[in-house]
């Protein structure tokens, strides 16, 4: 009765094709219709394997739907729809096509039931999304996109090698629980870890996302890292190592976020921080923790999208993105200000906003399983995320000192997209049961008891108090035009410098060796010619080659004359 076997990536790829050849209103209508229709279709799809075929000796499953993948499927549709609404004003076919392909690749990856299909979409995610960065068409974005692409493709290659090991170890390509035993497990773990922005592998995100276009960043923030979170949730639930990595991810980026000037880079750091909460949840691996991780991924797509959209609106209208150049925009961009504050409240996990109903699950799970230190780190990170994403972003963009910029609110389509996201943030926060009913496990969790609400509100209000206190005392670091060194320094500065030095030494040595060789050769030739000079004057080097040719000609002529005479 229903065409079950249409995998969700297909409509988006077809949409990309149509977007490439249509223009104007027609294209907008089609691009809006695709996530709606595809989303409705997905809503009807029951769990189960819907599309598979044999390839060599292996069974490839291109479309497997279960609670976990459906959850991500839904939110990817929401994200794609919001992103498309947000970018309706864009007249750049390259971006429209890349965005559709990218959303489709994300969907393909989360519904992939085998590792080979996953690998294909894994690489497609990289190759399609990089155009959203390059579409900014600046030298900076080109370079950042190149670095992004190299790292993403590297992750894909490691995934492929891991897949090959896995196939030879297990004799199957089915993508399910893998775990950290054997080389295949580790390779795939590292591949996902790179895409998940693990510490020291995180700079592709903070490097590339702020350099993408206004609308491109909104798409970028939704898919790549969430696909990584999904694959971890499927293949490595309960892996203890993830708890510690995740906790590190929640904590270290907030320090960088506090001193970062580019507000979209601040959001990129806070994206790593939020993914850290999800990774911790997956590492804990209990039903509550996995639910927390998955629902937090769901919410994060929406509220992080909202924050990137509001900062995108600022960039679109003012052409500036540095905290040091902005401020006072609430005066002329009131709608954007309010929508941004909704996103900020959601990411900070204020009660009645979406972040609260999902993050508290991970925190509770950490406490219940006795990870006290981890819980303290998460608590610190919760306060910290409020500090940099919840307060710093709206404060420095819309309030703080008056920059004198009087930009208006952005076009209506951008406002509408932000409004949809804001409504979802509040709706999920007020009525979390709808979200909980989609989750993989039924835990009967209720975030709204007095204990949780009071604890979280106290934490947040006193963080705000700390901000006010630091600001009044003049201890808050001012926004400065600067670049802050991060791990990327290793491959953007140290490696090139070392290579440059090494090569300059190699070249110098090479030149020296060549010169010494030439000198020796010259000396040998001089020596030989001196010997020759003594034995034969006729053919020695002091005569030009022409004289030898002449003498040969003379001999030949003599020979000719002799042959005639004969």
């Amino acid at each position, binding site marked *: 009765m229903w065409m079950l076997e249409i995998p969700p990536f297909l409509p988006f790829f077809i949409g990309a094709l149509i977007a490439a050849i249509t223009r104007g209103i027609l294209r907008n209508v089609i691009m809006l219709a695709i996530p709606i229709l595809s989303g409705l279709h997905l809503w009807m799809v029951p769990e189960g394997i819907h599309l598979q075929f044999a390839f060599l000796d292996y069974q490839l499953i291109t479309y497997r739907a279960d609670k976990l993948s459906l959850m991500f499927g839904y939110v990817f549709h929401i994200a794609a729809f919001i992103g498309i609404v947000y970018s309706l004003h864009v007249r750049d076919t390259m971006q429209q096509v890349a965005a559709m392909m990218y959303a489709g690749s994300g969907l393909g990856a989360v519904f992939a039931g085998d590792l080979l299909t996953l690998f294909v979409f894994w690489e497609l995610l990289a190759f399609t999304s990089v155009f959203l960065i390059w579409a900014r*068409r*600046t030298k*900076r974005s080109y370079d950042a996109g190149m670095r992004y692409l190299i790292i993403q493709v590297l992750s894909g290659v490691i995934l492929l090698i891991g897949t090959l090991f896995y196939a030879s170890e297990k004799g199957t390509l089915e993508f399910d629980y893998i775990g950290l035993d054997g080389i295949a497990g580790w390779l795939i773990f590292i591949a996902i870890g790179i895409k998940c922005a693990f510490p020291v592998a995180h700079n592709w995100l903070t490097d590339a996302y702020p350099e993408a276009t206004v609308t491109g960043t909104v798409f970028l923030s939704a898919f790549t890292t969430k696909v990584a979170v999904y694959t971890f949730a499927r293949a490595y639930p309960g892996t203890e190592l993830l708890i510690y990595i995740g906790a590190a991810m929640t904590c270290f980026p907030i320090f960088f976020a506090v001193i970062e000037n580019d507000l979209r880079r601040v959001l990129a750091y806070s994206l790593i921080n939020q993914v850290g909460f999800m990774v911790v949840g997956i590492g804990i691996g209990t039903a509550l923790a996995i639910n927390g991780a998955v629902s937090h991924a769901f919410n994060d797509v929406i509220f992080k999208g909202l924050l990137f959209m509001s900062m995108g609106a600022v960039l679109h209208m003012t052409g500036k993105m540095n905290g040091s150049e902005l401020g006072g925009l*609430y005066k002329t961009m009131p709608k954007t200000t309010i929508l941004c504050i909704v996103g900020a409240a959601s990411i900070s996990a204020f009660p009645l906003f979406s972040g609260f109903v999902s993050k508290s699950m991970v925190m509770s799970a950490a*406490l219940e399983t006795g990870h006290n230190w981890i819980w303290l780190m998460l608590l610190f990170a919760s*306060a*910290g995320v409020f500090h940099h994403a919840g307060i710093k972003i709206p404060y420095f963009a819309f309030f703080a000192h008056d920059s004198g910029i009087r930009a208006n609110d952005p076009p209506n389509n951008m406002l509408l997209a932000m409004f949809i996201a804001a409504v979802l943030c509040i709706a999920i926060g007020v009525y979390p049961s709808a979200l909980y009913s989609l989750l993989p496990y039924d835990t009967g969790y209720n975030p709204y008891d007095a204990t949780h609400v009071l604890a979280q*509100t106290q934490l947040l209000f006193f963080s705000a*108090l700390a901000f006010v206190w630091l600001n009044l005392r003049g201890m808050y670091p001012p926004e400065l035009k600067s670049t802050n060194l991060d791990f990327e320094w290793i491959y953007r500065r140290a490696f*090139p410098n070392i290579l440059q030095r090494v090569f300059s030494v190699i070249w110098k040595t090479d030149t020296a060796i060549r010169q010494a060789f030439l000198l020796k050769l010259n000396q040998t030739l001089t020596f030989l010619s001196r010997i020759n000079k003594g034995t034969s004057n006729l053919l020695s080097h002091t005569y030009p080659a022409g004289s030898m040719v002449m003498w040969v000609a003379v001999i030949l002529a003599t020979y000719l004359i002799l042959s005639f005479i004969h």
Partner: protein
Amino acid sequence: MENKKKYIFDNPQNVKRILYLLYACCTILFLLDFVIHRHVVHSWENLWGFYPIYGFVGCVILVVVATWMRTFLMRSEDYYESNDDNTNNKKSSDMNEENHRKLGDHNVDA
């Protein structure tokens, strides 16, 4: 300058009001600790004022440490664009700037 429109936070009184509201909320929340009975999982949660103090101290430490990090992490804005070491990077950074201008670095929405 006379006809410049006044906005809500141009009046310092309004900023003060917001701050007083915040102080009031904080006080109430702190006092609620003594009223509301919570089910605690961890013994530290039982300490009065654990969450408020943790939030406040955590944020102060965060900002102090981050400010200190600036002393050794902060570089000029075009640090990565100037390819060379300190020796002859003046010229190349100028050239880069010129390149950027040509390419239109503020082209936000191509």
